[in-house]
C-alpha cells in the first residue's frame, strides 16, 4: 500500500474520532437548544411543553441514541438538518464555504507575496538596519491581534475616507468580481498581516541556515551571482518550513477566521459555527467540525506531497 493510500485509509477513523469528541463536548456544556431559543423564558415551560420542544430539536433521546442516529445518517451521506437554517447541514456549509475558501486563499497570497521576499531580503541583509526594520515590522505583525487591526482598518476607512467594504451579505466572485474583491480585500489584509509576519520570520531564519550551507559556499566560489545563489540555490530549500507553516495556517483559515468574519460581518464558516455553538444547533456544529477536520487533513496531505515536489530527496513513508 503506498503512502497516499495509507493516509487516505486513516481519514475515516480520524473523522469518527473528531465527531465523537465534538458530539460529547457540546452536550457536556450546560444549556441546550431550548434555552438557546427561549432564554430565561424557558423557565415558563411546563414539562409537557419542554418535552414537545425536545422532540422538535431532536434532543429527547439519550445521547448515545442521538449519536447512533447521527452516525447512521452520516454513513448515508446525511449530516442532518440545521434547526437554525431549516435546511440540510451540508447545503448550509456549502453556501458558506466559498467565502471562507476565498478569504483563506487571498490572505495566503498576501502573506506569501509579502512574507517570502521580506524574509529573503532580511536574510541577505543580515544584521543590517534594513534587516532590523523587517524584523521589527514582523514582530509588530505577529503581536497585533487581528481584531485590533480589523477595527483600526474599519475606523480609518470610515472616519478618514468615508468608505467601508460592503458588510453583511456575500457577493460571490463569479457573480460580481468587483464587489467581491471590495468585500474581501480588507479582511484578507487583516488576516494576511499576521500571516505574512510569520512567513517573514520563518523565511528569514530558514534562509540564514541555508545560506551558511556548504553547497551555497560552493556555488558562490564557482562564480554564481548573488541573485542566482539566493533565488535559485537557497530559496527552494528554504521553502520547506514555509510550506509547513502555510499548510497549518491555511488549514486553520479553512475552519473560518471567526474574529475577522465577525468584525467585517462576513457570512463565512467561522461565524456560522460560532452562531451554531451559541444556538446549540447540534447538527450544524457536528457537521461543520467534521467538514473542517476533513479540510485540515486534506491540506496536511497536500503539504506532505509538496515536500516531495520541492525536494525529491525526501521519500514519503510512515514515520
Amino acid at each position, binding site marked *: 500500500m503506498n503512502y497516499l493510500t495509507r493516509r487516505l485509509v486513516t481519514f475515516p477513523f480520524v473523522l469518527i474520532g473528531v465527531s465523537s469528541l465534538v458530539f460529547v463536548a457540546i452536550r457536556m*456544556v*450546560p*444549556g*441546550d437548544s*431550548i*434555552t438557546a*431559543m*427561549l*432564554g*430565561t*423564558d*424557558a*423557565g*415558563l*415551560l*411546563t414539562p*409537557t*411543553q419542554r418535552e*414537545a*420542544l425536545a422532540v*422538535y430539536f431532536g434532543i429527547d433521546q439519550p445521547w448515545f441514541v442521538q449519536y447512533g442516529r447521527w452516525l447512521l445518517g452520516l454513513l448515508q451521506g446525511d449530516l442532518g438538518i440545521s434547526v*437554525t*437554517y*431549516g435546511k440540510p447541514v451540508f447545503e448550509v456549509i456549502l453556501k458558506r464555504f466559498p467565502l471562507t475558501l476565498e478569504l483563506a486563499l487571498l490572505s495566503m*497570497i*498576501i502573506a506569501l*507575496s*509579502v512574507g517570502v*521576499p521580506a524574509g529573503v531580503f532580511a536574510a541577505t541583509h543580515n544584521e543590517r538596519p534594513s534587516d532590523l526594520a523587517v524584523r521589527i515590522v514582523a514582530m509588530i505583525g505577529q503581536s497585533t491581534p487581528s481584531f485590533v487591526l480589523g*477595527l483600526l482598518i*474599519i*475606523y480609518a*476607512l*470610515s472616519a478618514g475616507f*468615508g*468608505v*467601508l*467594504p*460592503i*458588510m*453583511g*451579505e456575500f457577493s460571490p466572485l463569479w457573480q460580481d468580481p*468587483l*464587489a467581491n*474583491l*471590495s*468585500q474581501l*480585500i*480588507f479582511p484578507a489584509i487583516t488576516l494576511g498581516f499576521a500571516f505574512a509576519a510569520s512567513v517573514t520570520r520563518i523565511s528569514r531564519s530558514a534562509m540564514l541556515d541555508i545560506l551558511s550551507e556548504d553547497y551555497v559556499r560552493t556555488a558562490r566560489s564557482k562564480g554564481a551571482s548573488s541573485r542566482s545563489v539566493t*533565488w535559485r540555490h537557497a*530559496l527552494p530549500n528554504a521553502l520547506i518550513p514555509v510550506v509547513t507553516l502555510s499548510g497549518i495556517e491555511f488549514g486553520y483559515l479553512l475552519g473560518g477566521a471567526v474574529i475577522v468574519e*465577525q*468584525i*467585517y*460581518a462576513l*457570512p463565512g464558516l467561522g*461565524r456560522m459555527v460560532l*452562531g451554531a455553538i*451559541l444556538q*446549540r444547533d447540534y447538527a450544524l456544529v457536528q457537521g461543520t467540525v467534521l467538514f473542517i477536520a476533513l479540510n485540515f487533513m486534506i491540506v496536511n496531505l497536500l503539504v506532505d506531497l509538496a515536500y516531495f515536489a520541492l525536494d525529491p530527496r525526501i521519500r514519503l513513508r510512515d514515520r
Partner: protein
Amino acid sequence: MVKQLTKKLLSSIALAALLGTAAISTPVSAATLRMAWSQDATGLDPHTQTAFSSIRLLELIYEPLVRLDAGLQIVPALADSWQFSADGLELTFKLNPKAMFQSGAAVTSADVKASFERVLDEATGAAARANFLSIAGIDTPDATTVVFKLSHPDAPILAAMAGMNAAIVPASEIAAGTIGTKAIGSGPFKLESWDPNSKEVLVANQDWAGGAIGVDGIDISVLPDETAILAALRTGQIDFALLNDPLVATLVPREDGLQLNRMPSIDYHVLQLNPSREPMTQLGVRQAISCAIDRQDVLDTASLGEGKVTGPLTIPAFASDPSQLFCYQRDVEKAKKLMADAGYAGGFSASVIAATGEPATAAAEAQVIQSQLAEIGIKLDIKMMELNVYIDAWLKGDFDMAVALNGGRADPYTMYNRYWTKTGNLQKVSNFADDTLDSLLQKGRVETDPAARKVIFGEFEKDISEKSPWIWLYSSYSYTAQQKTVSGFVPSPTGSLFSLSSVTIQQ
C-alpha cells in the same frame, strides 16, 4: 523574475483595495431602508420565539389583536375595538374587516381562535402560554367577532395579547404545519428572504390594513460588531440601526448627519440574591446588601450614566419616585450595623454570576458591586459565563447572586407573577415565597380599576424593596441610530421597531 512577480502581486492587491474602497456605499434604492443590527432573529414562529431580536423582526411581519403604543397604551392592531364584560369574565374583540394576510386571505375570527388554541396547546411549546391560562373557551359568533371566555377576571391579559407571542397566524398554515417555516402574517412587511445571521429582505405589504407604508422595503444586515455598525452609519452604507452597547451609542451624536434615538426602557438591571442560600436567608443581610449598594454609581460606572435608577416598577404609569424606597440612598454604616445584627460583622464570601456581553455592561456592573460590597466585608467572586451556561444556572437557581438584565412588561402582574407568586413558573429562580407579595399580585390581577391597581402595585413595590430578595439597580435606554434623512420613527419603551412601517427617507 521573483521580484517582478512580487511587484505585480503587490500592485494587484493595492489595486483591489482601491477598487474596493471605490465600489462601496452604493445605495440599493432610495426608498428601501437599509438597516443593521448585531443579533439576528433565531426563528420565524411568532408563538415560540421570545428572543428580543426575533420579536423585532416578527413584529414587522405579524400582528397581534392589539399593540402597545410609545406610551404603553393599548391601541388597535387587528382588532378595531374590544370590551370586557361587567363581571370581567368575557373579553370581546371586533376585528378590522379590511385586515388581510399576506397570502390574500381575510383575517377572520377562526384564525384568531386557531392561533390562541395553538398557543395554549402544550405541544407547541409556547412560553407565553402561561399568560393565557385564564382562557376557558373562545367563541366566534361571526367572522369578525371573537369572544374570550375567562375562568376568572384577568386584567393583565389584554397587555399580554399585545405581545408578538399572541400574534394571529392563518388557521390554514397551522393546519398545514408551516408556522415557523413560512412567514405569512398580516403586518406591514412581507419577508422576501432570510439568510440567518447574514441578511433579511422585507418588502412593503401594499395591502396592509394599517395604512400606507413609507418605504418600499427594508434590507436588514446582521453586523455582529457594533463599532462596525457605527462605521456603516458613518459612511452612509446603512440608514438605520439598532444598538445595544451604550459605549457605541454615545458616540453617535458626535457624527454629523446621524441621529441617536434614546428611549427609557422598561427592562431593568438587577442584582438577584438567592434567599434560599445562607446567609441571604436572613432579612438583615439582604437589607445590608441593599444599603451598601450605590445604584447611581453602578449606573455611572458601568453604563456611563445612560439610564436612571429604578425601583421594581419600571412601567411609567406605575413607577414611583425610587428615592422613597428602602435604602435607595447608600448608607454603609446602616449596612454594617445590619450585618452585625445578623451575626455577620466580619462579612462573608459569595459568588456572583454574570453573562458575558449580555448585557454589554454585565461585567462592569459585577465589578462595581464587588467593590461596593467589599466595604461591608462581603468578598464577591465574579463568575462570567457564556449566555446559555448562565441561563442554565439561572433557571436552576444555582447561584448566590446574579447580575441580570430582565425584560419588563407593560403590566406589573405579567412582569412579576412568574417570580413572586407562590405558583409562579420562576419560583425556582427567585427562591422567595412571601404571603404579602403573593396576595398583592393576586389582588392586582383581578382589579380592573387603573387607580386602584396603581395603589396595589405601589404597595407591592415598597414591600419587595424592604424585603430585598433582589436589588433593583437601574433601567437603561434602548437605542436606535439613523441618518437624519430618515424621519417618522417613534421609539418605544419596549424596544419595538413597529413604527418603521411609517418612516420615510428624504431623497
